[in-house]
């Protein structure tokens, strides 16, 4: 679900970058980048199933 939301957010950022104001596009971009990094850190904190 979070990945669909991130793809949707990127789509919105692109549409705003093409049609909207640059300030809003940059702000939405920053929010989306931070959200994707947060998603990565959430998954990176999972316990790894390693066999050694």
């Amino acid at each position, binding site marked *: *679900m*979070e*990945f*669909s939301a*991130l*793809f*949707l957010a*990127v*789509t919105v*950022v*692109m*549409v705003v*970058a*093409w049609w909207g104001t*640059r300030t809003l*596009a*940059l702000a939405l*971009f920053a929010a*989306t*980048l931070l959200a*994707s*990094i947060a*998603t*990565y850190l959430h*998954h*990176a904190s*999972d316990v*790894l199933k*390693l066999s*050694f």
Partner: protein
Amino acid sequence: MTRSLALTLNALGLYAVALVLVIAFAAQLLLNELPCPLCLLQRIQFAMLAVGPILNLRFGPRPSYYAVSLFTAIAGAAFATRQILLHIMPGDLGYGSALLGYHYYTWAFIGFAVAIIALAAMLLFDEQFRDDGKPQPAGAFARAAVWLVIALTALNVVSTLLECGFGACPDNPVAYELLKRAP
């Protein structure tokens, strides 16, 4: 490098991003290789690489717009590195199939590294940042690139929703959650 050439290269950059998204879709739909959560994050970063070129095409080239894509490429390279390291142990067959000897996440790392080098190279040419006061509306070639990459990203919203459903995406997805038939 003239402003016009820089804008053409930005449009070509968008087509390159679109090509990566098409290849990812081809692997998913033709080979039935469903992307894992880390794979999806790398795909998201590839799509986000397009934001800088779109801003350049809309408002004219600026170093800050190249910086937008640089941040994205660095994040994408970090995500790909994490997945490479998850499968670094001898005997580990890696996730998914290999293409020309490398797994998709290794290709993703190479792609993000190439993007970082290309963006840094573009920043070397100051001439493109001189505003001559003449508005330069995007041509059909650039407009088509923008809409192609927006359409492919929107398609990813649908495919990811079908794959993961409304819950957490499985670590090793083998079927589309929303297409599973109720028992």
